């Protein structure tokens, strides 16, 4: 029994980690006023790029960095679209999701000549634990950064009232760009953890909606890094639970159980009835 609980706890931490990174990115982005629906795609980009680079250089750490960079690139794409072209952020994010998912599938065939999944590549091995711990440390750091530094204050101001930021002599568009690029980088990191941290390959659809579960965590956590992280742990728990139970109880409907994290996210969404307030300028082009 104790063994089971221990496994569950460990697995919860591991399963939460990628979602935490994405959610932290989501918090920063929305605090600056940009809804990053493209977290899912940025995770996929990070996961895929990490695998390619790890394969090419046989050095997983480089793969990790490449994954972060890939996420940041798509983050920059969204940032430009949102700040310079003032597009509908949600539609743009959706586009990025499809681009990344399709691009990764395309890349699998072009580069590895096998559809569906990549061959196995060097993974981080035991070192992935440092990423798990780093996720939680980062949550605390971001909480402090957001509420006690100049950057944090200015970013939050941008998400509430960009005009006021202009009046203060600052550039809200630059602040938003930084925030969205960082969110892409974090999502990319989460994706890289999925592909070469937890596993050692990339397969189609491996992000499985985590980028959206992360968004639910952002809302449920009231746009606070620590709150969002707590929500991610809850969602990670359900993913871990489903994993563990399947192994233990043979007659459980395995496929239906996989829906647990998503149902948990749905319930979380419903649970925050009218008690949460997004940053006032969230999603509104300026």
């Amino acid at each position, binding site marked *: 029994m104790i063994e089971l609980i221990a496994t569950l706890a460990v697995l919860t931490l591991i399963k939460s980690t990628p979602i935490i990174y994405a959610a932290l990115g989501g918090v920063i982005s929305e605090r600056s006023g940009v809804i990053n629906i493209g977290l899912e795609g940025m995770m996929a980009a990070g996961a895929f790029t990490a695998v390619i680079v790890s394969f090419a250089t046989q050095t997983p750490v480089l793969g990790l960095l490449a994954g972060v960079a890939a996420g940041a690139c798509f983050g920059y794409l969204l940032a430009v679209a949102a700040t310079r072209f003032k597009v509908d952020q949600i539609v743009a994010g959706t586009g990025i999701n499809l681009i990344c998912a399709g691009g990764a599938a395309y890349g699998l065939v072009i580069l590895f000549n096998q559809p569906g999944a990549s061959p196995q590549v060097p993974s981080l091995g035991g070192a992935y634990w440092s990423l798990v711990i780093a996720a939680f440390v980062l949550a605390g750091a971001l909480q*402090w950064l957001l509420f*006690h*530094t*100049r950057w944090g*204050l*200015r970013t*939050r*101001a941008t998400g*509430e*009232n960009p*005009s*006021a*930021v*202009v*009046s*203060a*002599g*600052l550039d809200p568009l630059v602040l938003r760009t930084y925030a969205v690029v960082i969110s892409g980088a974090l999502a990319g990191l989460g994706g890289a953890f999925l592909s070469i941290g937890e596993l050692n390959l990339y397969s189609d659809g491996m992000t499985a909606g985590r980028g959206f579960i992360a968004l639910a965590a952002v809302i449920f956590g009231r746009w606070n890094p620590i709150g969002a992280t707590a929500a991610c742990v809850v969602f990670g728990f359900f993913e871990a639970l489903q994993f563990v139970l399947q192994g233990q109880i043979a007659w459980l409907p395995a496929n239906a159980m996989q829906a647990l994290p998503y149902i948990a996210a749905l319930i979380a969404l419903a649970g925050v009835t009218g008690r949460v*307030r997004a940053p*006032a300028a969230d999603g509104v082009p300026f």
Partner: protein
Amino acid sequence: MNGRGEPALSLRGIRKAFPGVVAVDGVDLDLFSGEILALVGENGAGKSTLSAIAFGELKPDEGTVHSRGTVGLVHQHFELIGRLRVWENVLLGREPRRGFSVDERAARERVLAVAQDNGLEIDPNAVVETLPIGVQQRVELLRELDREPSVLLLDEPTAALAPAEIERFFATVVQLAARGTAIMIVTHKLQEVIEYSHRVTVMRHGEIVASAPTHEITIGEIARAMVGGDLPDLATRADTTKTPCLHVKDLNAGSGATRLNDFFLDVHGGEIVGIAGVEGNGQNTLADALTGMIAYAGTIERRGTIGVIPQDRQREGLVMNWSLVENALLGRQHRAAARRGLELDRRRARADAAAIAQRCDVRAASLDVAVKTLSGGNQQKLVVGRALIDDPDFVLAYNPTRGIDVGAAALVQSRLIESRNRGAAVLLISFELDEILALADHVIVMYRGAVLGAFDRDRFDRAAIGRLMAGST
């Protein structure tokens, strides 16, 4: 003190156009240290645009802006961040640092220092959105003062202040001028112009049409220069028989500072009841309760049909991308007369739109253009015409002439009087006391969501009403 020599702010040949309208057309303006200049003009004359250009927020299409030292601007609609604290708003962009983090204590102390220096009271730690509007404006002012501007621009600074607060505000302004700050006040309140300014400049249709030292010009002359002629007349008030229409008693609704407290009200057909009060005293809550937008406890009894003129035409009254025809239906589309089965009666809608445009002088290229291409005055006339076209028994007019030119305002006010003459019960909620005194048969003063006093037309007492609006009984 009128320090001459080099002007603190100098605008030359300023021109600025937006799609469809030239807001500022060849303006030269000088502002000197220590003087208080009043820039007046009716809505749409270009005053706010000029201020924004002088501040640097807006780039002119042509012309130059020269200033000695910093320019500060207190906006008409505050640029504050409600969820942040006073000190965060005041010091955004200039936050004192201690290592990597913000030195919050130093920030709070600095805000207090600037406030005291200018004779203002403030709690640096308060969250801005919890503050009354008059205090919020103080925060905006402090933000500019902290930058020690040599030029301070104030855009409609007293719009949301009670009379007593206005006195305190101008005391601060006069003190600033005495210390050498060049001050320009954009306003349409001529009484304040006469009392407090050294010089007056009048704008009309984007140009400067008059400029004079304040002691050399009268209110009448200023008003005439603003409008370019005499003010249009309002419709005459007819004798009417009053029939009960709206009865409100023990009304409690909303929450927080704008809560209604046992509000009561009676409006009869054939009269205009005016609700006088400073913005932020529960008028929104009252309007929302009367139109069924929020829940309430208490009694609201109303006979007959209702026509509503909302306070924010662009957000609450129109679909900006739609045509006049489609907007003419908004709020009326569920009535049996507007439909033919599942479909809308488009011929009827078009006829209605034409009737509204004709009756209320709505100028548009055609009935099919998007409403967003219309000027503010024409948009408002459309909204008013639509509210009145079905001859409602009760009319709720909330700031019906806000932000529109004098001509359109006079038309709107005349239509309200005519409705009253025809027997409708009109409830006029307005932040402009002059408007209420001009139109109402009966005035109720609203303060912190409660009724503080009532006056009949033959006993209007401006000073007494002003005191009640500020809460002193």
